């Protein structure tokens, strides 16, 4: 169970950030506020990455999500400005979707706490390795032929395609 130490406190605070921010995202009427709540939530996720000794991912998380994606979304909100304050935030099926997601959460919770699907590592306190591979290993893995070089190239192609596609879709065609 939980030991009371600095890591636990950090975990609880970050959980507050992540879930509180997410709650703000789905309920706030003002979309700019919702985006800032999302930034808070994503910042909390970056904190989780630090706690899980993945500082590289934490930095990339801040760089990509907070520096780029949230700015993109704020731009999207501002360019569609008349839509920022809708009278009805939620659509007609919000009760149904609330029920469905709650049920899903209960189902996931059961799966996590009780070893329904056989992943007992989730339940029993596992032996956590002290030695963690560092960023250099990841760099080699991403470009080694035995690693992820093909997905890596495909990912860069995807980014380029997405960039061109976004420009083509969003530009004003005169």
């Amino acid at each position, binding site marked *: 169970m*939980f030991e009371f130490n600095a890591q636990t406190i950090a975990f609880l605070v970050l959980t507050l950030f992540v879930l509180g921010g*997410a709650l703000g*995202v789905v309920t706030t009427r003002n*979309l700019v506020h*919702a985006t800032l709540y999302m930034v808070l*939530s*994503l910042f909390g*996720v970056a904190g*989780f*990455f630090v706690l*899980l*000794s*993945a500082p*590289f*991912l934490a930095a*990339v*998380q801040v760089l*990509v*999500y907070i520096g*780029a*994606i949230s700015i*993109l*979304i704020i731009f*999207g*909100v501002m*360019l*569609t400005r*008349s*839509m920022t304050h*809708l009278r*009805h*935030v*939620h*659509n007609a*099926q919000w009760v149904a*979707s609330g029920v469905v*997601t709650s049920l899903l959460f209960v189902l996931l*919770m059961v799966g*996590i*706490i009780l070893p329904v699907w056989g992943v007992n590592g*989730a339940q029993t*306190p*596992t032996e*956590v390795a002290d*030695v963690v*591979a560092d960023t250099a290993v*990841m760099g080699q*893995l*991403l470009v080694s032929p035995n*690693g*992820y070089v093909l997905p890596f190239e495909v*990912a*860069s192609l*995807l*980014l380029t395609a*997405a*960039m061109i*596609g*976004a420009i083509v*879709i969003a530009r004003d065609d005169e």
Partner: protein
Amino acid sequence: MVPLWAYLLVAAALFCLGMYGVLSRRNAVAVLMGIELMLNAVNINLVAFWRYLEAQTMNGQAFVAFIFVVAAAEAAVGLAIVISIYRNRRSVVIEDVDIMKW
């Protein structure tokens, strides 16, 4: 350390909140935000499993890196589509864009 199930629980909650946003929000930009939250929940799961079960190799983190790429591409294209719709129909409410529905 904090037990693994705690991370998984938070990730599940985050995923469900994001899904609720996707299903219930009317504004397309808000729906995109919900999708980002769901992707982040997946990331938490991947990193947590990596840390607790596979910390010797870097496979878990590599997966997360690819999800970052996909998320960035998705946000860029998604917002471009939203802006394009807004330009054509003066609305980003999802129910207003049902011209393909029959």
